[in-house]
């Protein structure tokens, strides 16, 4: 056996949350619909005027698996499809985190928040030149909602278990009927690619939709509404996209976007190799940089623009196994769960964590300490009044003493924490072995907790084994994980806070909330779902954050900054804290020298 | 007549794994003349094989020449360059090893093993090489040279293998053949065949031969001169008729006493012979002062325990190392 440790694909828990938010669309920039030749209604983007032509090369950590938005669930496929090849009706701007017009130029909400009327942009064409109209949208939603297609988007379009209904008013107007009131439903449309009926209707009726648009699809059988379209796929090596000549955006001077002629995705399966290839000039932009590599590149001064976009939406935390295990629980597990259920125990653990050291040692300072799930990067939803208690071993000890714990001296002279039954407090923390940052955090935590006399073992597990343990078999003591909100809106974490949610990690999918504070959180989350103003929602969500801080079901640790880089020659490079961190404005990126990356 | 091979005061030692040295040959001198057969007689451990190896500088890595010269056709082999030496080995001096089953490469066809020897000394093309190989084989096999050439050693009998070794040795018509126990592992009738063959070859090729053996019977009637080796020293050297007729050294006498009537040797002669001479051959790592044969000698004198005898000439061709003759 000669397999050695590989820096395996760091699988972030990409919690893609596409949820509704009730807020009026307010735009920082003026979008002026402009009538251009032959009924085309192009969207004009502000920003630096670019230079058409050239090629941009980006590395992907894994090969995309498909070009079919219905079956794409892996991060690379989504990044390619949603980021560069497809377009949605309404788009969440990754920089402002607000909704803005896309394929739909405007939307109207009925007074009862049950009806959304969308107006389509005029003169839209798919990348193969075929015109797009309301029938394509009807087709798209029929496909998404068809149970036999197994589209993962289907669940999004069910509200309260009932599907959204779509009705065509005329060629450019559609009415979406929601089964129950829902905040700003327009956020639902982000990420829903519109499918070309003229290409997909046949496979759909034949029941072969899932297999269509595999990577080997000939370029002429593929069409989308995004800035780029398929040119060529070379298995294992790269995916080449070319400029969509029918794209519906233009720059301030009326030049049709995108600027780039070609967008190349190279498959570079190791993160270190990605850095090296960026360093050697093979790729033009890089994102998801670790702090170490960020410093490394910054130090080199090889003509890179390095960008620290600030704290992202990833929050890392430890949680204990609070599941109701019933008869399944061993006596040992029952004893441990008695500690874990004790809120003072959790608070003591939280007080012992040296968050400052985590940020310094794990993120080399490019991160933020966390006391709640909302990171400082998400200013609109951060509850600034949640207390940030300083690390205090004395206070932690006092809490533990109050909860009936005490200390004895072990044979080797170490002080050992014991529970009321005299048993030493020992437990293990699961963590994903492929994520170096989290393993490091766990090791630091282990050392922190040793000072309380807790004997903690770190158990790094391969990711899927970990998920199975946490969500299926529930055989674990504690677990260190991280979640990334796809969208800065609280609703993206709905299933984390609802006690019935599948990602309510410490005790998922409960039939009834196990505790009063969980019941209160359920109530608050549901309330904010139907609340109509930002202020109302913010107040409700602030209370959720307070409950979390009081009860510490998750002990929040730290959040890394979003670090990215680009060659100096790449114009309009602005890293965002939302995915895709760098390619979110790919239609505006351009090569200053026009040549693009192709040095060798 | 000029000597073909002249060995003077040859001393060889081995370094043991513990790092100590022990002498295997201690000042051996003799000559070999063109066309003659010199029989070298000695029991196990007397240094016979070392002598054979030393002549061609084939000592194992832990063997070392201490002093002496080996002059062959006017060239000092011990100081010759590797290239020169290689020309002599197999070209001018043919070598026959004692164990035919181990001296042949197990996975190369015999014909190829012979042609390799030829190719090492003569620039011939493939066909000529093959022809020459078959010719050489024909000299040692009355028939079937082709089949033998295509065979692997393990497919041949002991006698056949020994003939192949012979063929390798004579392949380049050498001036001297050194045969180290050529018949030791063979049954008596095959032994006779091989000895007969050796004699024939000598007559055909007019080469000299050093025939090393522990068995005096083999040398009788074949060797022109006899050299008796004991514990790395020459005990007695002289014409075969004289040495066999009137052995002078006590060791030679003891050795010849155990000679059974000719042609009735049993299969494993070594054992029966050596039991007759009392005592065991000396441990060369722990030599006392004095004559090396002294502990086993029936004629020992006082002087024998304190110093070593020198070679004394009895006649022009006959010399003995024993105090009885002056020493």
């Amino acid at each position: 056996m000669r397999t050695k440790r590989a820096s395996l694909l760091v699988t972030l828990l990409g919690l893609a949350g596409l949820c509704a938010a009730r807020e009026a669309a307010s735009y920082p920039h003026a979008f002026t619909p402009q009538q251009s030749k032959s009924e085309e209604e192009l969207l004009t983007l502000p920003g630096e005027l670019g230079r058409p032509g050239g090629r941009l090369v980006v590395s992907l950590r894994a090969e995309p698996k498909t070009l079919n938005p219905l079956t794409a669930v892996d991060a690379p496929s989504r990044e390619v499809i949603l980021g560069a090849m497809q377009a949605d009706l309404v788009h969440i701007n990754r920089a402002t985190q607000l909704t803005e017009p896309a394929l739909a130029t405007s939307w109207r909400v009925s007074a009862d928040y049950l009806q959304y009327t969308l107006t389509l942009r005029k003169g839209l064409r798919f990348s193969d030149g075929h015109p797009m109209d309301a029938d394509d949208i009807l087709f798209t939603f029929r496909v998404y909602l068809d149970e036999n297609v197994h589209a993962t988007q289907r669940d999004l379009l069910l509200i309260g278990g009932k599907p959204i209904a779509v009705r065509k008013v005329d060629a450019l107007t559609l009415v979406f009927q929601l089964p129950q009131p829902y905040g700003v439903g327009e956020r639902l449309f982000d990420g829903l690619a519109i499918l070309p009926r003229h290409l997909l209707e046949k496979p759909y009726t034949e029941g072969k939709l899932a297999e269509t648009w595999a990577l080997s699809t000939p370029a002429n059988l593929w069409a989308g509404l995004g800035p780029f379209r398929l040119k060529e796929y070379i298995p294992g090596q790269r995916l080449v996209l070319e400029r969509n000549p029918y794209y519906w955006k233009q720059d301030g001077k009326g030049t049709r976007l995108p600027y780039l002629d070609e967008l190349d995705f190279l498959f570079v399966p190791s993160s270190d190799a990605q850095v090296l290839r960026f360093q050697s000039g093979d790729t033009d932009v890089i994102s998801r940089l670790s702090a170490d590599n960020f410093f490394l590149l910054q130090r080199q001064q090889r003509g890179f623009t390095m960008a620290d976009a600030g704290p992202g939406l990833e929050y890392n935390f430890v949680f204990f196994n609070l599941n109701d295990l019933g008869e399944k629980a061993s006596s040992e597990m029952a004893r441990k769960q008695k500690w874990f259920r004790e809120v003072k125990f959790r608070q003591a653990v939280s007080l012992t964590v040296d968050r400052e050291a985590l940020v310094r040692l794990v993120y080399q300072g490019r991160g933020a300490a966390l006391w709640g799930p909302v990171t400082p990067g998400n200013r609109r939803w951060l509850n600034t009044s949640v207390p940030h208690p300083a690390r205090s071993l004395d206070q932690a000890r006092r809490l533990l003493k109050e909860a009936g714990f005490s200390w004895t001296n072990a044979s080797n002279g170490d002080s050992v924490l014991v529970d009321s039954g005299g048993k030493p407090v020992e437990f293990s923390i699961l963590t994903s072995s492929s994520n170096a940052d989290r393993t490091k955090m766990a090791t630091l935590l282990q050392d922190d907790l040793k000072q309380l006399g807790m004997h903690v073992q770190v158990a790094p597990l391969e990711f899927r084994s970990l998920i199975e343990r946490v969500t299926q078999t529930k055989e674990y003591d504690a677990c260190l994980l991280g979640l990334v909100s796809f969208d800065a809106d609280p609703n993206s974490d709905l299933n984390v806070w609802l006690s019935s949610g599948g990602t309510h990690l410490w005790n998922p999918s409960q039939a009834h909330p196990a505790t009063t504070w969980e019941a209160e959180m359920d109530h608050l989350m549901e309330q904010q779902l139907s609340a109509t103003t930002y202020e109302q929602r913010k107040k409700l969500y602030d209370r959720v954050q307070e409950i979390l801080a009081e009860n510490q079901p998750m002990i929040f640790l730290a959040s890394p900054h979003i670090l990215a880089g680009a060659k100096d020659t790449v114009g309009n490079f602005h890293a965002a804290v939302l995915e895709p961190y760098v390619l979110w404005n790919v239609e505006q990126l351009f090569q200053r020298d026009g040549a693009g990356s192709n040095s060798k | 007549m000029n000597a073909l091979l002249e060995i003077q005061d040859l001393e060889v030692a081995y370094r043991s794994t513990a790092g100590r040295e022990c002498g295997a040959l201690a000042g051996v001198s003799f000559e070999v003349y063109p066309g003659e057969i010199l029989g070298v007689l000695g029991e196990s451990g007397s240094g016979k094989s070392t002598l054979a190896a030393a002549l061609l500088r084939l000592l194992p890595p832990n063997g070392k020449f201490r002093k002496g010269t080996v002059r062959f056709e006017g060239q000092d082999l011990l100081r010759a360059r590797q290239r020169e030496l290689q020309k002599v080995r197999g070209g001018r001096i043919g070598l026959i090893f004692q164990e035919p089953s181990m001296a042949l490469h197990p996975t190369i066809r015999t014909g190829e093993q012979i042609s390799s020897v030829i190719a090492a000394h003569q620039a011939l093309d493939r066909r000529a090489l093959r022809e020459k190989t078959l010719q050489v084989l024909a000299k040692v096999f009355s028939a079937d040279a082709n089949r033998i050439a295509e065979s692997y050693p393990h497919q041949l009998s002991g006698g056949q293998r020994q003939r192949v070794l012979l063929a390798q040795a004579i392949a380049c018509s050498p001036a001297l053949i050194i045969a180290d126990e050529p018949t030791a592992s063979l049954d008596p009738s095959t032994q006779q065949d091989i000895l007969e063959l050796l004699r024939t070859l000598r007559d055909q090729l007019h080469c000299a031969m050093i025939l090393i053996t522990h068995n005096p019977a083999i040398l009788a009637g074949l060797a022109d001169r006899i050299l008796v080796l004991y514990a790395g020293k020459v005990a007695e050297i002289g014409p075969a008729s004289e040495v066999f007729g009137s052995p002078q050294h006590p060791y030679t006498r003891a050795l010849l006493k155990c000679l059974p009537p000719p042609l009735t040797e049993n299969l494993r002669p070594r054992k029966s012979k050596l039991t007759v001479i009392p005592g065991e051959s000396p441990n060369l790592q722990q030599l006392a002062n004095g004559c090396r044969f002294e502990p086993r000698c029936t004629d020992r004198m006082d002087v024998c325990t304190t110093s070593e005898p020198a070679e004394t000439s009895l006649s022009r061709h006959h010399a003995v190392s024993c105090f009885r003759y002056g020493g």
Partner: protein
Amino acid sequence: MRYFLRRTIQAVLLLFGVSVLTFLFSALAPGNYFDEMRLNPQISSETLASLRAQYQLDRPLPIRYAYWVSSVLRGELGFSFAYNTPVGPLLWVRARNTLLLTLTATLLAWALALPVGIWSAASLGRWPDRALSGATATFLIVPELVLALGLLIFAVRTNWFPTGGFVSTGFETLSPANKLRDIVLHMALPVAALALSSLPILLRHVRAAMAEVLGAPFLRAAEGHGIPRQTLLFKYALRAAANPLISLFGFSLGALLSGSLIVEVVMSWPGLGPLLLEAILARDVYVVIGGVLLSTIFLVGGNFVADMLLYRADPRIRTESAAK
């Protein structure tokens, strides 16, 4: 001929065994492909169940196995959950790239290991041998991954070699000669990493096998016949030491598809490595089983070649099997 037939039957049985065991392990390994979606709040557990049902993941193991075997017979080698395509074509393309890399590296490693190992054995215990032993010891502890990374750093610093991949971005526009040059340049580092990581082991074996035979009487005999040293070492000694080396060579051939995983990942070589590694982690089981099966075929092939070579090289084995 009968021997050949017997080997074929054995190979089929082996493949059967490997596939059954891999299937079992895949069932035992925790989690399945759709588990990652479990943490995705967009997707309900009903959808997950229906997806699992669609791919028959909810069926009992024997049925899944039967389903897979029928797919193998169709030449598809099963169906990839992630790629939504048959596994066969996924594997072929990448296996070709892997072979290009590993075959070159293996041949290079052997071409280096033989002369150097023989030289080392011939100077056993003297300084060249000692220096070499030190060097092999050093290389033995350098993990393949570190070696590959080191070479990449070298490439970045010197700019002499590309830092990974198979061809440059503008490959299509190059002239045939430049295309060849481009591929060779891209191959240089991964080949070097692979060759260097297998070299110490090969060297040790060549040296040991040669040291074993160098004291043999027939070599001294051959030396006594004036056979030149080159012939002595490279023909006589090497042939005598061939048996263990041929077995080892069989292993080298067998590892052609499976031995380059890490290097491929680090050097972003479009071979089987990245595909299989991702498939293993994502529990895309049929891709894994297909990959395992493919490398098993190579293994069997490698052993078969080794047996054939042994049969050719050692007449004693030939005689023995003829006698049977």
